[in-house]
């Protein structure tokens, strides 16, 4: 009996050992290798940066970027404190006037300080998400209709194929002119610059989403369509119960593609049109031409990359949450 117990505990420790070894292997594979990659990149970057001289000083290395991250954060804090003080002063002033004259209509003016790096990030994110959502609202129903109807597909396909390769930046001047001509209101809900960027983003999101959705819809397993026919599902129920779930993987492929493109295009559009956002930050710093400019731009570059990566990851997690097809390789 004792020997048996010994054996069991021996086996027990042995198997825990195995588990630990496997875990270590896994950790080293999934964490150590990426860290190694990043370290090598940092080393190459800083060596290269040291050897490049520009008219604005040395090319920024990792150290300079880290410094700017702190700087930008402090600038943001300082600006926020300024804004708070401004509003406080305004409130006090209004309260005083109101005490003297009860009929006084207090004026509340927004703070018009410089937009910080953080503000620009938020602006860009809001713009890209709104443009993307607007595109999804148009493109997914359109894609489903095109996927279901062969004649609609034949009718629309040439238009899609021609507009698809057009860089949305080419649209930008036209969009700007049309928006300033048509979007006239005394109290606009959105700034014109925001509407310009949004439409540009929408234009570039539209095509990949329409195409992928329609391909997904038109390549639904014929058996499932036959099931729907045998059950005599009405058109709307057919779309809701069969078409939509069946094409979720394809729809999400299109959405991820277009969100990636949209983020890239938005930055360029902001640079070109001087619309608020990360692109404007980069352009302003470039025009500024101070000794810090390059390292600030480099910081922005890294932040843009990081945000693009996070956007893609979040789409991926929404996809794996919604998709029935767990076998699709989620990369």
């Amino acid at each position, binding site marked *: 009996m004792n020997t048996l117990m010994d054996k069991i505990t021996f086996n027990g420790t042995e198997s825990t050992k195995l588990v630990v070894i496997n875990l270590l292997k896994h950790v080293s594979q999934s964490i150590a290798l990426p860290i190694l990659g990043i370290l090598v990149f940092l080393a190459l970057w800083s060596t290269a940066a040291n050897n490049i001289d520009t008219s604005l000083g040395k090319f920024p290395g990792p150290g300079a970027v880290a410094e700017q991250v702190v700087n930008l954060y402090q600038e943001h804090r300082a600006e926020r404190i300024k804004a708070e003080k401004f509003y406080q002063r305004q409130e006090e002033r209004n309260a005083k006037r109101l005490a003297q004259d009860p009929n006084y209509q207090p004026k509340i003016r927004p703070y018009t300080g410089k937009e910080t790096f953080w503000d620009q990030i938020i602006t860009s994110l809001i713009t890209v998400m709104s443009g993307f959502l607007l595109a999804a609202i148009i493109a997914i129903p359109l894609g489903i209709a095109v996927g279901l109807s062969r004649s609609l597909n034949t009718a629309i396909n040439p238009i899609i194929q021609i507009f698809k390769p057009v860089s949305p930046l080419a649209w930008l001047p036209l969009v700007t002119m049309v928006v300033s001509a048509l979007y006239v209101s005394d109290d606009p809900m959105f700034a014109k610059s925001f509407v310009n960027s949004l439409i540009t983003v929408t234009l570039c999101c539209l095509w990949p989403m329409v195409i992928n959705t329609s391909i997904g819809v038109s390549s639904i*397993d014929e*058996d*499932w369509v*036959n*099931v729907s*026919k*045998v*059950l*005599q*599902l009405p058109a709307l*129920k057919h779309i809701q*119960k*069969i078409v939509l*779930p*069946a094409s*979720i993987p394809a729809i999400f492929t299109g959405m991820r593609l277009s969100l990636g493109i949209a983020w890239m295009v938005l930055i360029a559009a902001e640079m070109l049109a001087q619309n608020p956002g990360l692109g404007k930050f980069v352009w302003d710093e470039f025009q500024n031409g101070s000794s810090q400019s390059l390292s600030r731009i480099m910081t922005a570059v890294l932040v843009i990359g990081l945000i693009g990566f996070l956007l893609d990851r979040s789409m991926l997690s929404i996809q794996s949450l919604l998709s*029935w*097809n*767990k*076998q699709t390789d989620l990369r």
Partner: protein
Amino acid sequence: MKSFLEISHIDMVFETPKGPFTALKSVDLKINKGEFISLIGHSGCGKSTVLNIVAGLLKATMGGVIINDKEVTTPGPERAVVFQNHSLLPWLTAYQNVELAVKQVFHKTKSKAEIRDWIEHNLKLVHMDHAMHKRPDEISGGMKQRVGIARALSMQPEVLLMDEPFGALDALTRAHMQDSLMEIQDELKNTVIMITHDVDEAVLLSDRIVMMTNGPAATIGEIQEVNLARPRNRVALSNDPEYNEIRSNVLTFLYEKQRKIETITGKQSTLDETEIKEQIA
């Protein structure tokens, strides 16, 4: 006597880039209520086309199908189909797959509780009640096919159409499924048209075996009555002289009269009896 289901003079011509292709030529068949019919023939002979025409998924070029004095024009739940590859919706559980059908067919006539009971009853019938909340990718091929059958049965069809329902299953699972199907059939006495490649399956399950000639212009070659007593037991039948005679009749039809020669290129060509004899000589 007037028959329940009549396949009347069906021709099927497909338009191909190389011109019209006649798949079926004057297919005629009368089926009585509660009869179990097997369609057997070599691949490509148009068995599935016949089934799809009865289902209403294809429209015959000439002729038509009449069920209960009504002509078939569209697909419908009164002619439920069990597809070869189960065709369950992978994003729904077994229960939800059957529910989709039951809700569509009975949403006006059954209450919520009745609908739930009816779904569970049908899943029980195919012995799938233990796994009814699993998704298709979590269950085996045989189980998927069981759910597919439950879905078809739950529509209470006038005719149950089965397109090689067990073709994708291994031999042991297939035998189980055949036994299950016989059990269900004893209880429900459905009218069934089943396509099969398997001679033993055809003899074991059917009341009549309809043998089709090779295409193009395929038609019904012979019809073999199977008057073996039910319930049938596969082990007992294997020594039954009548069973063996029927079996050998079907085999003779398939492998001598309608022999199909596979050429080396993989293209299938069909030769009639005399040509085969010439070749051998």
